[in-house]
């Protein structure tokens, strides 16, 4: 009677220890992305073309290209020296790099060294991220009892979303608490406060390293090691042997490729779309995502656990299919909810404020006109026009720069939360069972290497590039605001077809063979 209870307690500890570290790694990775604009102004000034070039490299190279390399480097290490020490190493690399970014002096202080150091640290972050997930998923799966692998590994699947939740939450809180006056607080945050989320990482990492050091090595890996059956060359065995390479390709094209785009569309592109295409206020666009994540996260565990009974394949594929069919109507609804043309303005409440700020060395002024339009359903649309007011009355002002920001009323705000919740629900369907699915696809001795690569190509490249490719499509085909979704729809569609045709729905009862 005691043995199963002890087993459950033991696996709970393993999940908690693995998950805490993995949440922190995702947190570390996301804060750079979430603070990209502030970081760019501190380290990559647009006035210096080479610094701007490094900025583009930092965004693309570290976030996407380096991740599969991290998967190869640390996956190989995990199969050679063990899971425990490898993902401990990735955690330390990730945490130290994040902390170090918080300490790097800005471009104004140390010049060109600043963007170069930040780029190197960002590359290290990408490498570490490429190594961590496979380790945590493999570690938990190799401890999980047969028949409950989907349920137990699904806790690891919640970590990426929780890491994002944590990063958004800490950024929002930090932006608001640096001064009682919100405008001053934001200004302080942009000047130095942005470093706090980075520096905070070291505390989280110390706690996590302490927890992980107390963990034991995976029992399946220990058994292999004792029997002398570990792989001597995991990379060759994973990718140069036809019988395993075909499974790597199947995992990539039939599952992780589609899963990656559904994940990045539901969380990242949705947030960027709400902020940039719907023009929703900075804080509100983030709290919409925070609420949706909060409500949807338990479903990772629901679908992971369910996959132990009905198989992994169809839960993942139905998630992809729902995304393919409903993305356009869902994003269309986001647009129409935020569209002021669907609302009536209460003209009597309109506010106009004009501010003139002299431009040094001239008689001209910088004119900022802020107009607040109050619409029904509680929407407040703020239009900020900036232009130059010339002292010479004969000189016509150039076209003003116009920025629009909308604050939604309660009903529209919750409508958007529900829409994003539905999209994250699809994420939980495709992502909840995938760790168990990948673990069951590969043998223990090369599992870390074999599952990490398709995962990080699927998520890092296909998924990670989603917001950029979607944005590019909208600049090429300007007539349709939803055209960016075709990238996700086509990739997920292809993955659905391949998955439906070639994947099997078998649940592997013994991952030790």
């Amino acid at each position: 009677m005691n043995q199963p209870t002890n087993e459950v307690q033991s696996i709970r500890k393993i999940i908690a220890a693995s998950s805490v570290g993995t949440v922190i790694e995702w947190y570390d990775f996301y804060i750079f992305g979430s603070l990209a604009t502030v970081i760019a102004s501190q380290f990559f000034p647009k006035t210096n073309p080479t610094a701007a070039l490094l900025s583009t490299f930092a965004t693309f190279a570290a976030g996407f290209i380096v991740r599969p390399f991290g998967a190869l480097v640390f996956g190989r290490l995990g199969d050679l020296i063990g899971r425990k020490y490898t993902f401990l190493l990735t955690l330390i690399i990730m945490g130290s790099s994040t902390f170090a970014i918080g300490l790097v002096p800005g471009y104004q202080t140390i010049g060109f060294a600043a963007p170069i150091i930040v780029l190197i640290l960002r590359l290290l972050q990408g490498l570490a991220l490429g190594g961590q997930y496979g380790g945590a998923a493999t570690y938990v799966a190799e401890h999980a009892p047969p028949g409950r692998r989907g349920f137990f590994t699904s806790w690891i699947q919640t970590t990426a979303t929780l890491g994002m939740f944590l990063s958004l939450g800490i950024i929002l809180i930090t932006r608001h608490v640096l001064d009682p006056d919100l405008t001053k607080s934001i200004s302080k945050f942009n000047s130095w406060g942005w470093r706090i989320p980075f520096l905070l990482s070291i505390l989280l990492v110390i706690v996590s390293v302490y927890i992980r050091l107390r963990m034991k090595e995976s029992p399946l890996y220990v058994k292999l090691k004792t029997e002398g059956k570990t792989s001597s060359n995991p990379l060759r065995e994973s990718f140069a042997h036809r019988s395993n390479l075909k499974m790597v390709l199947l995992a990539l094209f039939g599952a992780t490729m589609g899963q990656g785009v559904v994940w990045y569309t539901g969380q990242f592109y949705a947030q960027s779309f709400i902020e940039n295409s719907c023009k929703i206020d900075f804080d509100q666009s983030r709290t919409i995502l925070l609420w949706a994540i909060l409500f949807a996260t338990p479903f990772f565990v629901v679908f992971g656990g369910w996959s132990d009974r009905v198989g992994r394949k169809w839960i993942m594929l139905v998630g992809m299919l729902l995304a393919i069919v409903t993305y356009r109507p869902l994003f269309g609804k986001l647009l129409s909810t935020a569209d002021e043309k669907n609302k009536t303005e209460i003209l009597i409440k309109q506010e106009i404020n004009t501010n003139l700020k002299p431009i040094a060395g001239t008689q001209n002024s910088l004119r900022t006109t802020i107009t607040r339009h109050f619409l029904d359903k509680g929407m407040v649309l703020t239009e900020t026009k900036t232009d130059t007011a010339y002292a010479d009355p004969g000189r016509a002002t150039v076209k003003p720069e116009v920025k629009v920001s909308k604050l939604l009323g309660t009903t529209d705000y919750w409508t958007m939360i529900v829409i994003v919740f539905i999209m994250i629900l699809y994420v939980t369907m495709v992502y909840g069972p995938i760790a168990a699915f990948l673990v069951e696809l590969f043998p223990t001795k090369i599992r870390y290497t074999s599952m990490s690569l398709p995962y990080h190509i699927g998520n890092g490249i296909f998924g990670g590039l989603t917001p950029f490719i979607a944005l590019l499509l909208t600049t090429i085909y300007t007539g349709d605001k939803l055209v960016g979704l075709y990238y996700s729809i086509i990739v997920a569609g292809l993955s659905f077809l391949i998955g439906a045709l070639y994947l099997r729905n078998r649940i592997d009862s013994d991952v030790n063979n």
Partner: protein
Amino acid sequence: MNMIKRIAGVLWIIAGPLAIYYLVKTAVAEINRKPLIDTKIQWTVFVIVFIPIAIGIVIFGYYAVKGEYDHLPENSAEITD
């Protein structure tokens, strides 16, 4: 079912070169349209990253045509080569 898997393999083999062609064509057109350093980097990254993946789908299609996916391995003993 196995016949469909093999026939679909031809589609995946064709999809690879088609994807590369479309990608390179779009990259060249976009760089010519907006010859900024950001555009060049973005499209160069896309081309470099997606070409190996397109080769991957050709290999996947080849395996499908050869019937490699008619039966998927159920344990390590079946991963022999």
